[in-house]
């Protein structure tokens, strides 16, 4: 009984922290309509800042607390509201969510840059020198008591703010209808600001309170917040009392699992994964949503021409051959994952681009493909690759079944929860048997991966694998292009653009969604297997949620509706790694890059791939310049093979030559002006272009 009570106290004090953090999340969500994926990361940053001031620089605890909670946290909240969210406010819910994912990824990378993760940073609990309070059989430390007191103060304070002040009334009005609240004299911008400041302060308080109980680790702290998310989902992201109740459930569950879960090799991970499992379950208990009509900005999904797709695929294969012949030693290993991760990123195109399903678990699917290949394909049997794809697809379909009820932010959250369950539990399991089949994960460490044998050739060297990956990316790109032009692709876009219309025409939403999840997971699993071959040794860490976020961000920045996104994402994500060899600090810069790119989403919401395409199209269509470009590239390649120039010179020369020729092509095209099409026929007699909207708006503004 005493033990039971003791675990209860631990559970309640953890619950108090989750309640504080969760209520901040609810507050920002209801007022601003932004689901703050980076909420936990803000708490993490606050904990680090507090450590730096109090332990690092030796400031007195009250001063350090005051600076973090009253100066740094509000400043950070204002920064997020002003700099990150204003540019995407007019875009959709998904774009705002991507911004917060970028912030999460960026904060983790930044914290690991500033505070070397290999150093231990113990953070003392509050009032560590005071003897714990005792009441009968119950013992409660001052830190625990303080934590619970903070939760109570937060609860009372939020209630008073929302129900007893003008600002609170404005915030509640903004929840219901932003525009309407503005018309009646409320100030939605001020309500937003207050929500961000308070939300960040609550996250900061929670982060500082929880940090002494766990290690001061950027990734771990940012994701601990999964538990707080679970609490917020209990409150349906709206109700503060239910959020507090949810926090109690999650906190006590974790505590009692720690106390009473049987000790064996399979279950410790379950305790870590329990909040994520609970989150998944809580999402599924959400009320059935109505079929969605068109209320969002729809991303473009152009159908590639057959010729264009073939040319692109051939270029990808050629690029693989060039890379395999040009790269040497370390660079060959560094750039090896470029094309396989391109395939993983390409899986977002049918899933998120065509079908509009935002999933954060694609790299986990890649992990499953890699694990299956590592275990079954040790001898290089090609059929094992097929099995790897099928198993990944099956898992993808299993995720889709419960996810049918979710969309947008909730779907992203659900898939993220699924990924956390894999990271913390499933991937860490030792081998086990299900129905007589032996299932092995990462064998609680790392796995050796070898290359396949195809047509009697054992493909095991970096160069061969590079060419293989290139051919595979080319084929998958071609496959996605065919998909876009075919019946299934049309259906996916139809159901994305209007679920209601698709269903009332007789379309089966469940079947289409399960199919596209399975397809995307299969593609990701395929890419994962190739990624594993390049890495040679794989660990669960390489396929975790945090590792997958940058790939997601880069894919979004590329433009989710474009077949060329695979090559773009692989290049943009892995390409900068060649800088790693230059100096040790470049590693941190490279780690922050995807997040920074993600934050730039407001500038080109439709993606960079169409922009690149527009810029390079004149070259591809010019009968003089195109051969010239190819000659320049071929010449550069020959010089490199003959060892007359080094890799950097080759890259710079090829880029400079190609850019110069692009300018030439653009000039030539400008000379041969295109025939004028009357403005009312734009989008009819010629395709609608991205810039047309702005041209029209300017024309109207000029009168």
């Amino acid at each position, binding site marked *: 009984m005493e033990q039971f009570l003791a675990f209860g106290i631990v559970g309640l004090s953890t619950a108090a922290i989750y309640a504080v953090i969760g209520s901040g999340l609810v507050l920002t969500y209801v007022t601003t309509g932004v689901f703050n994926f980076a909420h936990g990361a803000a708490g993490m940053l606050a904990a680090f800042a507090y450590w730096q001031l109090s332990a690092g620089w030796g400031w007195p605890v009250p001063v350090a607390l005051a600076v973090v909670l009253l100066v740094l946290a509000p400043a950070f909240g204002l920064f997020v509201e002003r700099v990150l969210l204003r540019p995407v406010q007019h875009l959709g819910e998904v774009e705002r969510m991507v911004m917060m994912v970028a912030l999460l990824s960026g904060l983790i990378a930044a914290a690991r840059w500033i505070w070397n993760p290999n150093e231990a940073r113990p953070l003392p609990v509050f009032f560590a020198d005071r003897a714990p309070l005792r009441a009968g059989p119950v013992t409660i430390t001052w830190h625990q008591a303080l934590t619970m007191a903070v939760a109570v103060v937060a609860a009372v304070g939020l209630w008073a703010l929302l129900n007893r002040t003008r600002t609170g009334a404005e915030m509640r009005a903004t929840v219901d209808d932003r525009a309407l609240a503005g018309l009646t004299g409320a100030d939605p911008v001020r309500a937003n600001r207050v929500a961000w400041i308070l939300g960040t302060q609550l996250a900061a308080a929670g982060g500082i309170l929880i940090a002494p109980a766990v290690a001061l680790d950027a990734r771990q702290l940012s994701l601990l917040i999964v538990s707080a998310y679970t609490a917020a989902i209990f409150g349906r992201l709206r109700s503060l009392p239910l959020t507090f109740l949810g926090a109690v459930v999650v906190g006590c569950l974790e505590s009692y699992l720690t106390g009473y879960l049987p000790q064996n090799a399979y279950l410790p991970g379950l305790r870590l994964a329990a909040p994520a499992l609970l989150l998944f379950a809580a999402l599924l208990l959400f009320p059935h949503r*109505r079929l969605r009509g068109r209320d969002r900005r729809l991303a473009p999904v152009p159908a590639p021409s057959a010729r264009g797709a073939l040319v692109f695929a051939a270029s990808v294969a050629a690029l693989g051959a060039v890379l395999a012949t040009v790269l040497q030693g370390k660079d060959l290993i560094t750039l090896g994952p470029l094309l396989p991760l391109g395939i993983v990123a390409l899986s977002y195109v049918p899933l998120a681009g065509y079908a509009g399903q935002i999933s954060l678990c694609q790299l986990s699917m890649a992990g499953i493909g890699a694990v299956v290949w590592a275990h079954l394909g040790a001898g290089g049997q090609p059929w094992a690759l097929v099995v790897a794809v099928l198993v990944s697809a099956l898992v993808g379909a299993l995720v889709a079944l419960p996810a049918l009820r979710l969309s947008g932010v909730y779907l992203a959250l659900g898939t993220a929860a699924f990924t956390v369950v894999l990271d913390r539990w499933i991937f860490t399991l030792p081998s086990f048997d299900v129905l007589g089949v032996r299932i092995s994960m990462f064998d609680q460490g790392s796995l050796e991966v070898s290359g396949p044998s195809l047509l009697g050739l054992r493909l095991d060297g970096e160069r061969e694998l590079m060419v293989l990956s290139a051919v595979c990316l080319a084929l998958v790109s071609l496959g996605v292009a065919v998909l876009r032009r075919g019946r299934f692709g*049309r259906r996916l876009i139809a159901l994305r653009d209007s679920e209601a219309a698709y269903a009332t025409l007789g379309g089966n939403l469940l079947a289409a969604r399960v199919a596209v999840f399975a397809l995307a997971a299969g593609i990701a699993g395929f890419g994962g297997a190739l990624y594993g071959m390049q890495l040679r040794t794989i660990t669960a860490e390489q396929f975790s949620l945090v590792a997958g976020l940058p790939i997601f961000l880069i894919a979004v920045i590329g433009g989710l509706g474009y077949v060329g996104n695979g090559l773009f994402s692989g290049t943009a994500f892995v390409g900068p790694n060649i800088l790693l060899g230059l100096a040790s600090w470049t590693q941190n810069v490279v780690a922050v890059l995807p997040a920074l790119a993600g934050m730039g989403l407001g500038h080109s919401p439709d993606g960079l791939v169409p922009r690149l395409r527009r810029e390079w199209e004149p070259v591809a269509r010019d009968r003089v310049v195109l051969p010239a470009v190819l000659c320049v590239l071929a010449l550069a390649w020959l010089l490199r093979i003959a060892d007359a120039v080094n890799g950097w010179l080759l890259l710079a020369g090829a880029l400079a030559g190609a850019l110069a020729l692009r300018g030439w092509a653009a000039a030539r095209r400008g000379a041969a002006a295109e025939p004028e099409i009357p403005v009312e026929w734009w989008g*009819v007699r010629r395709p609608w272009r991205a810039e047309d909207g702005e041209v029209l708006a300017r024309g109207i503004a000029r009168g």
Partner: protein
Amino acid sequence: MASLEVEGVTVSYGGNLALDGVGFAAERGRVTGLIGPNGAGKSTLFDVVSGLRRPSSGRVLLDGRDVTRMGPARRARRGLARTFQRLEPFGRLSVRDNLLVAAELGPARRHPGRVADGIVHRLGLAEVAGAPADTLPTGVARLVEVGRALAVRPALLLLDEPAAGQDAAETRRFAELLRALAGDGVAVVLVEHDMGLVMSVCDEVHVLDLGKVIAVGPPEAIRTDETVLAAYLGES
């Protein structure tokens, strides 16, 4: 037997009754009008019939079979198709692709291209067949939605303000189209504010007001019905 029967359907939003024990019927080969002031519950009734909204009580029967608990897709496979007052095109697909998606889901899925091209021709959409549905003016977009509904070869067609945004000549052509569809044996239900169109094309008109049916009858009778005039003009 009526193609569509609605019996005692009640729907409430919060505390407000959007539909209050509504009964309705439509028959094959006839155009049935459904009119009423804004907020009368016309679109809600379409949502209930097409399965997008569950009524709190009442039944919906298609060809005598109770479909109240069926989802929208299963009802569609029983021959029901609709358009939306608030447009729901597949915005980023071309007009022809919009029609293709529907044709591939309908009974003519073996030759969807032929069905789509036939509708493009019939509705005069050839000029815009390649344009994304998002970029069309409202009148044309409504026509595309009608075409999309026709592509599944419906036995029961619900049209929610299909003629809004059309000029006089277009409306005349549209009336001919509706008569031709009824002639092919389709049960057409028409929600429309253009009284000229309703009165010229409908065989029977139902009038909804504040969630209740206040009058049913042939157009000439409805035109002079005092309750209907009161509901529209706000006088007793």
